[in-house]
């Protein structure tokens, strides 16, 4: 979690920031999935003779969050492509030099 977060903050390269963001998000997904496990529980599909199931709800939530993550990544990368076309670079420092407003 922290590795991804650190990458987002420290890297100047816009693509690397997005990768960092992805790592950060995926680690949160893992956090959720780990909450869902029930010790000794089976996969949450109704089967005869099984009493204890894992909690399926976190999986469903994370399925939604994954879709959100995909959309975020796609949109972020699309912005990076457009930034590259507009500025000719994807290094944060060089963009700042071209535009002093940021």
């Amino acid at each position, binding site marked *: 979690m922290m590795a991804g977060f650190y990458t987002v903050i420290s890297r100047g390269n816009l693509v690397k920031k997005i990768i960092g963001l992805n790592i950060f998000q995926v680690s*949160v997904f893992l956090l959720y999935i780990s909450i869902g496990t029930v010790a000794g529980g089976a996969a949450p599909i109704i089967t005869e003779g099984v009493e204890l199931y894992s909690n399926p709800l976190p999986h469903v939530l994370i399925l939604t969050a994954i879709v959100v993550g995909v959309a975020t990544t796609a949109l972020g990368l699309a912005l990076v492509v457009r930034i590259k076309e507009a500025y000719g670079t994807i290094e944060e420092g060089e963009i700042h030099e071209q535009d002093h407003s940021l």
Partner: protein
Amino acid sequence: MQEHLSILLVVIPLVAAPIAAMLPRGRMPWMVTLMVTFICAILAGMQLWTVVHDGTISYELGGWAPPWGIEYRIDAVNAMVALIVAGIAALTLPYALLSVEKEIPERQIPLFYSAFLLCFTGLLGITQTGDIFNVFVFLEISSLSSYALISLGRKRQALTSAYQYLIMGTLGATFFLIGVGLIYSQTGTLNMMDLAERLPEVSGLKTVHTGFAFIMIGVALKLALFPLHLWLPNAYTYAPTVITIFLAATATKVALYVMLRILFTIFPDGFVSATPTGDLFILSGMAGILSASIYAIYQMDIKRLLAYSSVAQIGYMAMGIGFASAMGVTATIIHLFNHALMKGALFMAVGAIIYRIGVCRLDNIQGLGRQMPWTFGAIVISGLSLIGVPGTAGFVSKWYLVLAALEQEAWIAVAIILIGSLLAVVYMGKLIEALYFKPATETNLAVKEAPMLLLIPTGALVLANIYFGLDTELTVGVAERATQALGVAAK
């Protein structure tokens, strides 16, 4: 029909979004969006009426009873925020036709309206839902579409500011997700009402405290609360005008609603006062008012000036939350409503200037006040409202805020509120000076008044500013009900 009100508010724009994207170029997408926003505004009005007269609405999605299914739970707070969102959207749309045709390439217009509708869906969804994970989903729907909308601005800086907002916004949303996950791990529920029942048992646990902190930071990022506001000025400055109007008037308000809901409904009564949350809110509110107002004074770009002023106004609302008293929260809710009115009007008037001359730097607009008297009048009146002159909406909310501060004997806060108003006089004064008292440049002498289609929505919001400044019963009444609905203990 009546019982499905709450879901229709979310479904109608959701259905309209792909339809708008599939329509041919031309004015059809705009027509569809206009109709949808009007229908939603009427539905939201009916919903508020129902809630005020018949009490809370609860709607079970898919017929699954809460806490297993997703529940839409509407009380006075959400109904009011939903009405703000839908109402502002309905006013923005007539304005949008000309402004969008001027600022967005024709090829992208259907997609523009489609993204606008998605953003609208997301914002309404946040207000309607009673499920905390659903809040995250709608938050992301609205944020993702607003990143895309902001990047459509004409300057290339729009791209970088959209990117910046995307990174900050996603970090905020992910923080929110972590917080919700931690709390879910301790309570096993995501329904807000259910959470409110179960949290008192576990509220001493470290996990819950950590989750609370994560959620607060996440929402504060979306809210642009003072130290986390860095994305806001850039995003508002470079976004297309219509989007600036819509987001400035609604997006931060909805985030504020989420904040109120979490602090006062979900978490048990003593929780906020047992942690330093309140003090932090007051501190960040005070710092926000001072620093953002001072920043605003030094801006040359009008949109950026108003954006910093928004950060300052959010500071006032944060202060109200920080007092954690019924009076403070009432003040926050009134200000939430009034700020939507005045910022909407201001950005619309500035948009009219941009429509005519294409830029909005202070040195380009000299003397325009004489050429565009109606627009100028709108700026003056809503500016007075922003400052908080008696007789305008801004006065009412500041009055309540000062009362709340006095009740707590927070003398410094009172002083800061007054200083903030003085600073607002300075930056609005700068704007009015440039518009009216500076001699017009030759190019500006040829500028005509903005078209009626831009002026009418602006005028409507300006009149609302005056109306709600004189007739306070409606806003204050609803805000007090909302405060009760949130469950803030009266002191």
